[in-house]
């Protein structure tokens, strides 16, 4: 049982006021450990909102440094941070928003050699990455480790997200394997409207907070997609696929795979 200080009661009063959250829910949030993979377009709003909400520990994985072209949407990084490792820049902002939050930084790429070790330390994982090899890696590692995660992807004016809990549809149920390198453009090639990252990232942050407080229904077995041009949101029911190579009845994948990444993405790292 956490003893709330006067400041904490004041800081989290708008959460505590919510019948569905209350003191208990806020306590669960403060005991939570969340890993955010990618401190970019999605990781920025996710980390900011989770920090403000008082998540106990936030782990951030990113091997990149802040680039001027990031600032159009990666709102956790400021102009002065150009050239600084994203994990450092993000840690500084999180601490400035909420000194109660413990931040673990991983200034490295997530790959098959470190994914399971890092993921096992956390209760919930948020995928805020920009490429398919890592999206599949996060999916496979979370399924193997029995960890829940939020998937997120954005492109141009569109976004998609779903939440996975053990036993519900995973990314591989929907998309069997990564597209060939370069076949599907990423944001760095195709562009993205900056605010889309905020729209999708805040949905992921809300799902994370819902997971810890047990509020409502998570985006499990549903893929939420939106098109900001028309502002139409849609949730497509998706089912766990029995023949899924990672979470099906007879899984064929028994180790993590480092898929090849498109060459044009690599040069931006």
């Amino acid at each position, binding site marked *: 049982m956490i003893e709330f200080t006067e400041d904490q009661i004041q800081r989290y009063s708008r959460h505590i006021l919510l019948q569905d959250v209350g003191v208990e829910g806020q306590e669960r949030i403060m005991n939570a450990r969340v890993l955010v993979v*990618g*401190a*970019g*377009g*999605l*990781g920025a709003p996710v980390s900011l909102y989770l920090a403000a909400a008082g998540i106990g520990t936030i782990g951030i994985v*990113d091997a*990149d440094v802040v680039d001027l072209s*990031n600032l159009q949407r990666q709102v956790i990084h400021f102009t002065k941070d150009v050239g600084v490792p994203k994990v450092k820049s993000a840690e500084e902002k999180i601490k400035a928003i909420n000194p109660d939050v413990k931040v673990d930084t991983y200034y490295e790429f997530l790959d098959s050699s470190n994914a399971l070790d890092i993921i096992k330390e956390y209760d919930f994982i948020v*995928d*805020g*990455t*920009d*490429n*398919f090899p890592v*999206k599949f890696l996060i999916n496979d590692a979370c399924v193997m480790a029995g960890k829940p995660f939020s998937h*997120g*992807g*954005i*492109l141009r004016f*569109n*976004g*998609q997200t779903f939440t996975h809990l053990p036993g519900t549809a995973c990314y591989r*149920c*929907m*998309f*069997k394997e990564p*597209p060939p390198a370069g*076949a*599907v*453009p*990423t*944001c*760095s090639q*195709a562009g*993205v409207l900056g605010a889309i*990252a905020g729209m999708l990232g805040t949905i992921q942050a809300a799902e994370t907070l819902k997971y810890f407080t047990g509020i409502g229904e998570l985006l499990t077995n549903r*893929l939420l997609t939106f098109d900001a041009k028309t502002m139409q949101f*849609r949730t*497509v*029911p*998706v*089912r766990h*696929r029995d023949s899924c190579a990672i979470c099906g009845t007879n899984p064929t994948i028994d180790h993590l795979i480092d898929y090849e990444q498109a060459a044009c*993405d690599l040069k*931006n790292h």
Partner: protein
Amino acid sequence: MFVAFCIPLIWYAIYPSFGIVTSLFSPYLCTQIQTQIDMAKIYVNGDAQEVNLPLNVSELIQQQNVQQPEMVSVQVNEEFAEREDWESIQLKEGDKVDFLYFMGGGAL
């Protein structure tokens, strides 16, 4: 009698290429029914659309101008349709077809 007249109709649905031959022998009434039944309302990504039958998933993908069809994941009535089955899945009235696209952006 009615059943006998409509056999060509079923043939037409299954073997469109024989349709011309069989329809020569079809009575006018059955041709009428045929044209009515040949239209179906299906739901593509949630939007109702009138389509001509027969129509399989591969043909629908072509009609919808899906960019990079090799990159799309397809669900028919909330069940994933394996790529190798796209040609053999015949759509019918009321079917719900969803195209799921890869979206990879986020961090960069």
